């Protein structure tokens, strides 16, 4: 049964990358639709709306970070695969959940907020600083989840 441990651990890495990445894909997609609309009217706003479109993309990176840290923790990246008990595997899976779930939901919400902020750029391009702030507020929670996932994964003894 002890072989199952590594499966759970890898599942954890998968959950982090998959959920957070899917959330970012959704978010960037939503913001991208709004951005395309603005650029079709005024191509000079391209750089500004591109930055806003990118904001929901960070959750995917946070997921990648946790996935990577997990993989290197369980020794799948070069070196021998560590002997992981079922309990440790489940611990790692649990540690990966925050960034997965929060990443998914926050990236989607951030995408919507970014789309609305792109609306600000369309009407008042000089208010870029403020427009950027609203999506950044959503991101806070993804960062908190990243922290907890990271601290938890690195604290689990293997």
């Amino acid at each position, binding site marked *: 049964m002890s072989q199952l441990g590594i499966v759970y651990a890898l599942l954890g890495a998968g959950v982090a990358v998959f959920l957070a990445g899917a959330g970012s894909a959704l978010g960037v997609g939503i913001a991208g639709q709004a951005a395309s609309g603005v650029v079709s009217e005024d191509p000079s706003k391209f750089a500004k709306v591109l*930055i806003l479109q*990118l*904001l929901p*993309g*960070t959750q995917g*990176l*946070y997921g*990648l*970070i946790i996935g*990577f*840290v997990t993989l290197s923790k369980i020794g799948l*990246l070069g070196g021998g695969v560590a002997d992981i008990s079922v309990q440790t595997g489940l611990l790692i899976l649990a540690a990966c959940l925050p960034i997965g779930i929060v990443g998914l939901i926050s990236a989607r919400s951030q995408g919507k907020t970014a789309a609305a902020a792109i609306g600000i750029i369309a009407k008042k391009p000089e*208010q*870029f*600083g*403020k427009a*950027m*702030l609203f999506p*950044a*507020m959503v*991101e*806070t929670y993804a*960062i*908190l989840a*990243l*922290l907890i996932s*990271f*601290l938890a994964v*690195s604290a689990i003894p293997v």
Partner: protein
Amino acid sequence: MAVLQMQRVSICALKKDRKAILEKLQRMGVMEINHILEEDEDFRRMDTANARSSFEKAAAAADQALNLLQQYAPVKQSLLSSLAGKDLIEKEKYQSVIENREELQKKAKRIQALDKERAENRASILKIENSIESLMPWLPLDVPVSFGGTEHIMMLPGTLSGQFTLDQVYEMLAEQAPELEVDIHIISAEQDTVYLTVFCLRKDSAAAEEALRSIGFARPSQISDQVPAEAKADMEKEISRIQSNIAEIEKEIMSLAVHREGLKLLADYYRVRADKYEVLGQLPQSERTFLISGYVPKKEAARIQKTLGGQYDCVVDLEELKEDEEAPVLLKNSSFSSSAEGILEAFGLPGRGEVDPTAIMSFFYVFLFGLMLSDAAYGAIVSIVCGVLILKFPRMGKSMKTSIQLFFWCGISTLFWGIMFGGYFGDVINVISRTFFGHEVGIPAVWFVPLDEPMKLLIYSMLFGVIHLFTGLGIKGYMCLRDKKYMDFFCDVVLWYMLLIGLLIMLIPSDIFASIAQATIVFPAAVNALGKWMAIIGAVGIVLMSGRANKNFGIRLALGAYDLYNVSGWLSDVLSYSRLLALGLATGVIASVVNQMGSMGGKSVFGVIVFIIAFIVGHTFNIAINLLGAYVHTNRLQFVEFFGKFYEGGGRAFNPFKENTKYADIKEETNL
């Protein structure tokens, strides 16, 4: 760290000097026009709308001509050319352009007319091409479509819609008129149309036409008197004639491209004049005199007085602003701090009575930004790129220049933190030495490696956060003291300091802190007691004093208790600084992901190539995404956490009456 003090300057001068004085003011560019005088019997405003719109039209015409020139004779613009800023033009050159402005305006008109002519020519080519298209099916015919026939024979050209063979046509016609004798030739057939000519005796023509019409035969709509092949050749000749015409037009437009420079100056000239006439329209004028009034920064006021008073017969009156007058805001900072003015502007300029926080903010901005990006190599790249841009384009636009300067400083700070934390493209030195040279070397961190001790950096992040927030509260205290609101200072600032510092002193020796920091700190008992009493006094004071504006004691206590609840706000503000750790880790981990991917090719020539490609692509991506992240989140920490403690903004930017050019600046005194 200062908002420049403004003064109101009012100038009364003779009407004959009107334009000269306005031009002088415009060139100095230090005065924002703002009239407080109402129109009355003696002082009237002049209607300049017509003159203004004609100048605006002239500027627009020159702009349009420039756009057309760019279309026909494009000047290559590199990606960076938008950074180059406006050209600096000698005054003599400008003068000579202005003297020739009639001539240049004609050139601009000529360019527009030529463009129109070209468009018309192209349209007529299209028309001819359409005619050729409709002629194509008749091409095999050796006589004109309008030929008609000979003395006894009649030719009827036309079309049948549908697909028919010659036999079918004969058959159909025979059904309609069995005794009619005709000779039918199919000229050509398309998918759903057959082009044919029908020959019959002239005496049968009426019957033939009748029969033909009943089977759906239609005469062609365009009948030309030429043999189709000849007509086609003629039309093609016409097209090539028009094309050579177009080429000539294009050549002429390109030959006009030498006036590009002049047209730019012309557009600027009319734009500046339009602005001048706008101001002119606002001036109250009597029969012989006029008034002009507005804001100037105090340090420029004397210069205006001297320059105008010395040259013209006029009275220049300076006065301090009234209490309730909302002056426009102009910031003045050291060259380091002024680079962060753009960030402040994005939030809002200081409102009335607020201090300019740029100087303090700029220091924290650079500090926090570096902590978030925290990779020595990335920092060096950012600084070098920004430094080169600044040196290469000295005439860059002002707002662009300040942001690039800011990133230059942020890059230096990133370099510093990267060295502290031992990040050089993540762990690239370790990875290269391990993969390609067999034994691992690396540059040790000067301070510690956050990946190994994340909790330590978390604690420090929050410590930096507390310092940042306390500074914000301190600025609020400074503003209270400056405005002599000692009560506010004590209740809103001192009590909060006491409460928060007391709570901190109580927190540090506790078990929770010990488990996070993995170190136990023990204070002497006296300090513990002091912390406890400070927190209690602070809390009680806040409950009692926060609602002091309210007379009802019950409501006052309730408001105070509600204000005490803000402790949770402080907690979440401090926790928010944990993003310093998270973003720093993000840079480092993604960089090592990139390095890891690159090293997968192993120790071989192929492996080196893979590594180089992965290195360049991966690290470029990582710099870009993390620069964006650091920028956004540093802004957030400043705007939400720091400014939330003391700053509201809402000031209006100083918008002086100046030469608002688009293409070039004229060389002379360019102040401010």
